[in-house]
Each structure stands twice: as C-alpha cells, then as structure tokens.
C-alpha cells in the first residue's frame, strides 16, 4: 500500500492488510501527531488498511512564533 507523507511531500510503500496503528509504528509516527486520511475520510488507528489502499498521514503540528 501507498503512504503519502508531508513536509516535505513524499510517498513510501509499506505492507497492507493490517491496522493503521501498525503502519504508524513501522514508520515511527505517533498516532496523535497525524490525521490519517483515506480518500475523502479520516480513519482511526484501529482500522485495517488493504494492500491497494493509499493513505495520507497529514501532520498536525504547527509552530514557530506566537
């Protein structure tokens, strides 16, 4: 399956057929630091993603001057 990462935008291939939380663990990404988007929807970490899926991991952090 394909995973789209941001900042900078890039794509990686990982094994599907498992839960989102397992994909995040493999990529060393904390679940609360990204939105997981499949198609037009957000999905939770317990959902299973298939080999043919594409998900976007959109970082939620912003920062700098306040």
């Amino acid at each position, binding site marked *: 399956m394909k995973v789209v990462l941001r900042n900078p935008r890039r794509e990686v291939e990982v094994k599907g057929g498992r839960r989102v939380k397992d994909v995040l663990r493999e990529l060393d990404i*904390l679940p609360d630091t990204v*939105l997981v*988007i499949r198609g037009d*929807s*957000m999905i*939770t970490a317990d959902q299973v993603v298939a080999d043919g899926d594409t998900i976007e991991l*959109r970082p939620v*952090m*912003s920062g700098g001057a*306040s």
Partner: protein
Amino acid sequence: MKCRKCGQGAVVELRRHNAAFCAGDFIEFFRNQVREAIRRHRMLSRDEPVLVAVSGGKDSLALWDVLLEDGYAATGLYLDLGIFDYSVESKARCEAFAAGRGARLIVSRVADEVGAPVPVIKDVTRRPPCSGCGLSKRYLMNRIALEHGFPVVATGHNLDDEAATLFGSVMTWQTDALPRQSPALPSTHPKLVRRVKPLYRLSEKETAAYAFLRHIDYIVEECPFARGATSIAHKQILDRMEDASPGAKHNFLFGFLDKARAAFERVEAVALTECARCGQVTTGTLCAFCKLSDQVKRAL
C-alpha cells in the same frame, strides 16, 4: 471504533478523553469546548466585535469558523510576513475562507510597518526568525485592533501551543513570563486590547480534525523558518510524554493554570507608559517594535 455519542463508526479518537467520535458529534464536541473556554474566562460577547488573527493555518481558520458559526461579529486579520511562497499561499487561504463566508478580512504587510519582511528582519537582527516575527505580530495585532475599534483580539493558540510555551518558560524559569500565560489577558492600559485564546482546551490533532471535517482549505506546509525552532522541539518532547500517558499535556497546562500561575503573579506591578515614537504601550522610552524598525532601517 464507535462514536461515544451515537454508536456509529468513529472518524477521530481522543485518547486523552478515552473517547471517539463520528464527524457530526466531533464537530459539536469541538464547538462545545470553545464555548466552555469563552464562558469560563468571559472571553467574548456577541455584543462586541472581535478581531481574529488568521495565518491560513488550521488553528486560526478553525477558530474563525467556530466564531462565525456561533454568531460572533468576527473579522479576520492577516499579517503578511513576506515569507516567500509560504506567505503567498497562506494569504490566499485566508482570502478564500473570508470570501466563502462573506466575512471581512483586514490585511497588513509587515514590510510596510517594519521596513522589511521577516526574512530580512531575520538577517538584520541576527536573532532567530521567530523572535522578530512574534514581536511584530503581537505589536501589529494590538495596534490594528485599536485603529479599527476592536476591544479584543482572538488567536488560534491551542493546548499544544500553550503547553509547549509553558514547558519552555519552566525549563528556563522565566518567572516574568509565567503570570502572562493565560487563556485570557485583560486590558491593563487604555491602549492595550484584550487577548483571548478560545482554542486552549483543544489539541492540535483536534483542531486539524475539525478543519478537515469542516472542509477548511488550510495551509498544511509549515513555515520554512519554524524548522529547528525551540518551540517545535518542546512540542516533540511533549508528544512523547502524551503518547506514554494520554492527558499529560492537559494536566501540565491546566494544573499550572489552576494551581501554580497565581504564585508567580508579580507583587510589584510593571509601570506601563507610551512609546515616545508610536504611542503604543511599552515599559521604556521606545517600544521594542520601534527599536526593531530602527535597526532594520539602519541596516538597509
């Protein structure tokens, strides 16, 4: 995972609340958190206009959206920092948001006010870019609010922002900064407007989820100058703590606000005066913004 309220499939999990929500119930949860913040700190009234500082990012546009939906007379203020394509794209997001909702947006260019955009200010001052940027933003937000008759400025600072700021202040024991950290700062001078942070109860993930579910077209790319910023490093540390112990950021910030902040209130009040140049509030003869502007003009 099921929605805590309706039992339908959930789209967002909030571990610190031990809960998950469907889209509709999450949006209502989010708005209720903002309403609670406003009520608890008497931040805003529907009888007075509020100036919302917007950057084109998720937090400030989510805040503007909630306030407009809840019937506040909320005008946007976009400060154009002149940071290359990042500023061009973030300004376009703010303009599109305002046009889509028929809301008023005030635009001000930092380069017109200081004499140079943020990238030049960074080079001239040789300080971290966030330093001159933050100083300029705070000054201009207040001055523009005064000039346009707004008694209050609302910013999109969220729980993560506030926890990271607190973490940074505690790490270096900036005891003068601690009492100023509050979800609502009153006006302490006729030329200082109130400042409020209605999102302080909501995490970054929650504001991002709200913006996504409301179809708000916000800028996902981070400011190019934020890379390597200390505040980002502090957020990453707190993210690790939150992952190990959900609710850690909330407990850190709310524990400070409820139990510790009062202990740092200064006994002696700081004497406020007006800047000899621009007339804005300061503690010295010239305000920090005018000094910065002088430094920039000398260098150009």
